[in-house]
């Protein structure tokens, strides 16, 4: 098994706010991330595909194809957007690193034509990230 990782960056804004909680509770749980007009990050996404290199092309997956999938599914959907309002799948979720990483996994998982999605790592900043693996597949790396 070989693991191939492609990195991309996008910039987006978000706000942490749960309408089921009071204003005070929101402030207490989410702190500055609850500021009403939101704030933004430069996100870095690493997508890892696991597979056997094709005997003819030597590739696990053609990087050009992966780049197009990432552009269509992630960059066009999320780059320079306000995640809470402009990404439909996040409408009823808090757009934390964990939830955005899970959404990215779900958007990509069925679109990978060769190999298998192994890991999605989303950095919200250099010091905060979330990893997603298929249950039980993490130890394979």
């Amino acid at each position, binding site marked *: 098994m070989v693991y191939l990782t492609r990195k991309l960056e996008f910039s987006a804004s978000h706000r*942490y706010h*749960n309408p*089921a*909680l009071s204003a005070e509770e929101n402030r207490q*749980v*989410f*702190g500055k991330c609850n500021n009403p007009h939101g704030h933004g990050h430069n996100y870095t996404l690493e997508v890892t595909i696991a597979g056997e290199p094709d005997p003819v092309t030597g590739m696990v997956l053609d990087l050009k194809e992966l780049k197009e999938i990432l552009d269509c599914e992630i960059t066009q959907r999320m780059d320079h957007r306000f995640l809470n309002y402009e990404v439909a799948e996040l409408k009823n*979720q*808090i*757009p*934390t*690193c*964990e*939830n955005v*990483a*899970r959404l990215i*996994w779900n958007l990509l998982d069925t679109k990978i034509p060769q190999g298998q999605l192994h890991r999605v*790592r989303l950095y919200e900043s*250099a*010091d*905060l*990230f*979330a*990893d*997603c*693996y*298929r*249950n*039980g*597949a*993490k130890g394979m790396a």
Partner: protein
Amino acid sequence: MIETLHIELGRRYHFPASHRLHSAKLSEEENNRVFGKCNNPYGHGHNYTVEIRFSGPVDSATGMIANLSELDAFVNERVIEPFGHRSLQDDVPAFRELVPTTENLCTEIFKRLKSFPAAKLEAVRIEETSNNSFEYEGN
């Protein structure tokens, strides 16, 4: 919602500290041979980066595996305060006997953080410099 994914939260912290690699079980010459420059008598320092990863269910009300301010307070109290701007072998009791290599620093930090109540500690990874890193998963 049934979670079909394994999700981890990763957080990186930074602290500077000094250390000297020296074992009381070895002669002066052996210490010198084994540890080289790291055995210099007055020690030297690094800017350590500690990366920790936790797993657990993502709370649907908060979208989080663990509240970051709780996590930061926990790590600050157990690692950053006692280790930051310190001499590891002189100021941290665990390293009075144990050589303060970054391997041993990984296991010591794992020990100090595994009781975090809100999520399961998966790994501690430390960059001693940007060229050397060490990781411990608790086994």
